[in-house]
């Protein structure tokens, strides 16, 4: 089994729609710069519903970071931050963003300046340090939403603390906008957000079908709206259309990979600058990455509750990266079963310690308990200097051979 020729992968029509949606979003945001309209920079796990309800434009440096990675501008901008003394060992989203803020360079000519910052530490402690830099640089206030880490089980005191901070956030937003915060507007936004999250789950669930109509590489590209714009109507429409397209593919028997032989699960943030190469490499082996832990992190469940603040507190405190390893193993196990996964591709991401530390144990546990093998790839999400091309290719090839042998033995039995 050789992977000499790159395998053509059918593209989703929806991806073009997503690009239009995101272009429109960034265009509006850029136009808003310097106007009456307020702009907030927010972390990917932050409670954007409050911003949308207060008619504030949310901007996600992490989403911008994926663009820097995919357009291969990241290394150049990381080097700018390194020149200031930021260690090369720090998160490459943060370094790339710092470089972009200073040089105003990026595929979209930099992000519009924030009026304030909202960091939620349910994804890492790094966001605090990163946003402290932004707060000093732009001389704008920072609101930290502090979501206590969940070790093994949720503690009611944590939820009460987070809920209380939502009230503080509302007061903070009222000071910034000079407007009374509308709870009924928040309820509408939360409703749309919950609807988007549910649709997103259904979109991802289409891959439970054999062959899977898309791979996680499609999900990575098309996750931008659920991350940045959930709580808006356009997002609901977008994912309705995406779901329809995937259902059409299923009806026509079209798979993301021409001949689906293996179903794999991706763990961690994508390697943004190697998406196409990796997608083609796996496809050449008939391997489809049918699920991943990253895009599933935006499947918020139980968001909509009679008390909107309670549902939001629960959803944002139990985010995937804010829970202990045993709970992550439970969630991965559920994905493995639901998507009938044959193997794991584990991206050990130098940039992201909360996602990566513990992966070796995770790999071992899944292998021991479920007999499902995993491959660890050491790399970085946007810093291409940490990617050893030949070595990774060899390791993937060897892993695919192992899977093929296992499948053969399984069939012979």
């Amino acid at each position: 089994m050789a992977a000499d020729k790159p395998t053509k992968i059918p593209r989703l029509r929806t991806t073009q729609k997503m690009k239009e949606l995101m272009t429109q979003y960034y265009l509006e945001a850029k136009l808003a710069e310097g106007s009456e309209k307020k702009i907030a920079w927010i972390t990917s796990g932050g409670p954007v519903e409050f911003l949308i309800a207060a008619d504030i434009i949310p901007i996600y440096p992490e989403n911008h970071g994926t663009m820097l990675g995919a357009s291969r501008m990241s290394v150049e901008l990381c080097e700018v931050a390194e020149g200031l003394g930021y260690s090369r060992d720090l998160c490459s989203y943060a370094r790339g963003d710092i470089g972009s803020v200073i040089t105003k360079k990026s595929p979209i000519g930099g992000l519009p300046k924030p009026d304030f910052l909202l960091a939620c530490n349910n994804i890492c402690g790094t966001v605090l340090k990163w946003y402290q830099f932004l707060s000093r640089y732009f001389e704008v206030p920072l609101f930290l939403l502090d979501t206590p880490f969940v070790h093994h089980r949720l503690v009611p005191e944590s939820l009460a603390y987070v809920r209380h901070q939502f009230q503080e956030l509302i007061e903070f937003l009222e000071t910034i906008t000079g407007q009374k915060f509308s709870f009924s507007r928040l309820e509408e936004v939360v409703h749309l957000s919950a609807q988007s999250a549910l649709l997103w789950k259904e979109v991802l669930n289409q891959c439970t079908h054999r062959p899977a109509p898309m791979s996680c590489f499609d999900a990575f590209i098309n996750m931008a709206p659920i991350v940045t714009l959930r709580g808006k109507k356009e997002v609901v429409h977008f994912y309705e259309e995406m779901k329809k397209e995937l259902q059409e593919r299923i009806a026509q028997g079209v798979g993301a990979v021409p001949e689906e032989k293996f179903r794999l699960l991706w763990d961690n943030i994508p390697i943004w600058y190697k998406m196409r190469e990796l997608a083609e490499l796996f496809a050449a082996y008939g391997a489809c990455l049918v699920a991943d832990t990253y895009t599933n992190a935006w499947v918020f469940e139980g968001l909509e509750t009679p008390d909107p603040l309670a549902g939001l507190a629960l959803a944002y405190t139990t985010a995937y990266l804010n829970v202990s390893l045993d709970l992550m193993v439970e969630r991965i196990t559920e994905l493995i079963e639901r998507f009938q996964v044959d193997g794991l591709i584990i991206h050990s991401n130098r940039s992201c310690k909360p996602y990566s530390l513990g992966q070796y144990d995770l790999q071992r546990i899944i292998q021991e308990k479920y007999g499902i093998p995993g491959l660890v790839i050491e790399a970085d999400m946007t810093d291409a200097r940490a990617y050893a091309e030949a070595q990774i290719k060899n390791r993937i090839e060897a892993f695919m051979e192992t899977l093929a042998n296992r499948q053969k033995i399984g069939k012979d039995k």
Partner: protein
Amino acid sequence: MENTSLINFFRRVAQNPYAYLQEWQAKTGARLIGYFCLNTPEELIHAAGFLPIRITGSEENISLAARHLQSYSCSLIQSTLEAALRGKLSSLTGTVFPHTCDSIQRLSDIWAMNLSFPGHWDLVLPVKLHTPSARTYLIQELRRFKKGLEDFSGRFIKDEDLKKSFHLFNRVRSLLRKLAIPQIGGNYSLAAKDFYAFLKVSAIMDREEFLAHLSNFMAAKEQDHHRKEAATPLFLIGSICDHLPFFDLFNNCGAQIVGDDLCSGWRYISVDVSLSGDPLEALAERLRQRPLCPCKYNPQFDRAAELLARIKASSAKGVVFLLQKFCDPHAFDYPYLKDKLRQENIPHLLLEIEPGTFSGGGLETRLRAFVETLVEI
């Protein structure tokens, strides 16, 4: 014990803490609880009837831990996991992981999955320190930890037990502050290596015993106001440094440490617990008032300004940043602090400590060159 023999004794304990603890435990039957990071309230552990032991890095070759931790984890977490997997921490009854950084948080998970200490506590302290809601949560979390310790030991912790522990720990801290390098407020000069050995031992040894030793030592020691004139005064900023040979480098290069902002230094001893009022509130207050850890958020506290004031008061001619490689929170503060120093024309040097066995050669060359430039000033 003569002062010279006490110094030698403390050096031996600091060099090989776990061997000392094993021996001591066999002799006394004491129960030891290890903890990471100075955000852990040792006083609570002590009042529950355990001896709190600060777990710090050890000079291990990393082999067993490499099956659990990526090479981009810091020296502290790699080497402590290595020591635990090799059975060197077997004298501990349990371990406490306070929420500080992402790495400690995941180390807790890996620790719980792969080691079988009878006790394991996660102390999920707030990251915010300045708001009333964060304070309420902090006190609740301390109460939860107290309850966890009580359930484990089967013994209720009375307020008076807690206050006794506060008193003891305050006395240790206040003597250590006096002992601290002259320029940061103390009157007794001690070689840097020995001063940090004393600090390391103070977080390991039975506190009553340590206090008795330290009191005798200070009573016998001549006050020494005279700094070695020839030595270049330096200020040290970083997280943990308990590789004691590291401090020899300063001597070798003709420098003297006159102040620090280290987790294993001044930040450990700088603030006491109030003996009045509710004990858990007092503990919370101490955590809130301590010099700000880069993992915590308190916009009412300006870490750079506080550091600059202390650096200036210390008469240091230069600052050495001592970073554990892969320590994100400290690495993120470095460019900002460095710029502040530059604005004040304070020379500075960055030294990075890599995980694994400590090797001083390269560091010494860089430190020597730095000190030479300061002599010319």
